[in-house]
């Protein structure tokens, strides 16, 4: 809870970009989103974690791509042309997230964001920073820091 308070103190509302991974709805802080682009085949990296799709060419930069469904252990069909890539910036690093579809941009009052209940058994719950309810559906706010693979550990 304190973490949420820390990250969002000076705004009464937070703008979120919501998207779908499988049947689940997630969102990220819109300020960390750089762009949204169509799916392109990634060049696989040897010895990488299964959720790392590889790297793609983003206008001359080598951009690592993460399969969010695999990362969150959500069962979906393998990524294809129908997927989109959300390019986000985490801790000064740029990263692509493969998701099923981008849905909406939402303004959520901070007061309506609640910390996820502490159930440590669920693997994916570690990636959720906060929860909120939009039109009766649960929307998860993704914790980008934990999605992002730590540099070098995968490689080692």
């Amino acid at each position: 809870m304190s973490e949420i308070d820390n990250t969002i103190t000076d705004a009464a509302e937070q703008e979120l970009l919501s998207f779908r991974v499988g049947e689940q709805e997630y969102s990220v802080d819109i300020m960390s989103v750089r762009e949204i682009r169509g799916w392109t085949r990634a060049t696989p990296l040897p010895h990488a974690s299964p959720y790392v799709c590889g790297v793609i060419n983003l206008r001359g930069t080598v951009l690592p791509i993460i399969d969010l469904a695999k990362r969150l252990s959500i069962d979906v069909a393998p990524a294809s042309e129908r997927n989109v890539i959300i390019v986000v910036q985490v801790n000064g690093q740029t990263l692509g997230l493969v998701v099923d579809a981008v849905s909406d941009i939402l303004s959520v009052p901070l007061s309506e964001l609640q910390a996820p209940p502490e159930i440590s058994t669920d693997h994916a719950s570690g990636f959720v920073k906060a929860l909120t309810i939009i039109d009766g559906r649960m929307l998860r706010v993704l914790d980008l820091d934990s999605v992002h693979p730590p540099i070098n550990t995968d490689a080692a």
Partner: protein
Amino acid sequence: MSDPMNEIRASFFIECEELLEALQDGLLAIDGGDTDPETINICFRAVHSIKGGAGAFGLEELVRFAHRYETVMDAIRNGTLTPDRDAMLLFFKAADLLSDIVRASQSGEQLDAATIESTLQDLEALTGDEGEAEAEEEAAAAEFQPMTLSLDMELPSADDPLGSKYTIEFAPEPELFKSGNEPHHLLRAVSETGTAEVSCDFSRVPALDEIDPEGAYLAWTIKVETEASKAELTDLFDFVNGLCTLEISEETAETPEETGPVPDLAPPPAPEPEHAAPPSKPEASAKTTPPAAKPAGGQSGGPSANATVRVDLDRIDRLVNLVGELVINQAMLSQSVAAAGLDSNSQVTSGLEEFMQLTRDIQDSVMMIRAQPVKSLFQRMSRIVREASGAIGKRVTFVTDGEHTEVDKTVIERLADPLTHMIRNAVDHGLEDGPTRLAAGKTEEGTVTLSAAHKSGRVIIEISDDGGGINRPRVKQIAEDKGLIPPDQDLSDTEIDALLFLPGFSTAKEISDLSGRGVGMDVVRSSIQALGGRVTIASESGKGTTFSISLPLTLAVLDGMVIKVAAETLVVPLGTIVETVSLQEGDIQRLGPETNVIHIRDVFVPLVDLGAELGYRPAPTDYEGRVVLLIAQEDGSRAALLVDSIEEQRQVVIKGLQDTYGRVPGIAAATILGDGQIALIVDPVDLMANASGKTGSPSDDLQLAG
């Protein structure tokens, strides 16, 4: 965000680097017999400018050293001291120390004051007495330096002790300040006409409680040496006419020494001879003789005289990146034009060809921006030679050649450490000591040569000494003693030379300060290989040893072979490939349950499957007709890398993976191909080092069965 003072400070230190370089050049030229008075002037001005700037930033240590250095140098300038070889060594040493102090001032570290002091005293001993009585003048220098921020103003050179001397007594009235005049500007204007020595008279300043805040109590005495006439000087004070007491009197010329170490108000401009002298000076023509007319040995002449712009390295890197993208984009465009099936004579195609030409030109030019002459590196090495030879008491002549050869900046930076090591080795191990040399019929003084040249798209740097050559029996003996090679092996000369590069090999009988810590040539070799380079040794007994380093011109592009493995496109650096072989039946020999070797010209080479090593596919079942790349490994042995097919050979733009993803074993970097896809660049040496070597047992079974 950034403090402007810090920026100015930073640019001062950059300037210092250039000045130090000019100083080195000048000293080298003098050492090489250059007697042109302008050469010593360049040195003097370099030291002087450093002093001026240092004063402005309150770097007292630096001011003090530069001041005393410059005083001694002035003795050469006015002819009272003719430096001999030992004196020149001292000057070099002092120049080295000066650059140490500059660096220490920049980083805020402390230097050993005793060394500095002893060098200075040695230096001052050359001129006899001059050292001591300077403290006062120095204080004055420091006091007035803050006025001299305008380092790059186009001021006339202040060093030529020409013209007449005037003493100007200048005492402002309160009205002068009321009318908005500023004595500082006047003082500066005077100093711009020549060499000025300003002293301030505080004697009329009353006690604090008696001070009229709008009163004027200060008076200045300016001793100026200039070719300007008295009337011209008076003109400078035209605006304050009647607002001050002004007295200008001409002095009869005295000994020039008096004005030598004078702390000028305005430091002389950067030491390019070109813009120094105003046209009115009769001597000007002599001073601005084209540098080409001077002896070649390390003059600051030609290249440094060109107008230069200082650019943040980040910006250049961005430009390099963008051009890389342009090249990729252009390749993509050509591909789609070709795919559209347009007539090869169509306007689009011919336009595209022009575009391709332009892109290539731009790429070349951009790469040129990053290229720098190796000169600064070589200068650092000359210092290493001096220090190393001094430490072990050998007399060494250091010769450099081709110092204007341009190499990528990163290469230069990363070459410094290995080169330092090799130079020290050459001095310490390569050259024999004096008596041995004389006994061998050579001169007592050894020679170490460092040269650079462009050869077939690569840079060749050679370090050679005229020492005794590699003592091969001893090298072999040591390697055997250390258990690096089995005893009684029959080795060729080249193979023995290569032992020097083995980790843990050190030939020094005793561990000296200089070299021989056992972390020798293997580190040198791996750092050079990291730059995509190679080291080779040539040694002749009794004649000397030459180490040749061959480096790529740039680290931004790479010649690679584009290959396919399991539908993935990869690039293998061309430099590592010795040859390519198409496998025939019977080339493969089984060795152990999961490993195979291939049989090429009576040599068995381990076979490594690229696809399996990278985890792209299981090892194939049939090897016939497949292609292997023979890779040269660090120890000279070879390995065969199995790929599916070879696509083409081309230049690729290197994109690091380190920053965006992290290190991937077996992969050096990435690149972007013409179709916009990313291809990984294989690091074959790393890959081989970590290879499992499994080349699939099922295939063997099949092969055996078939």
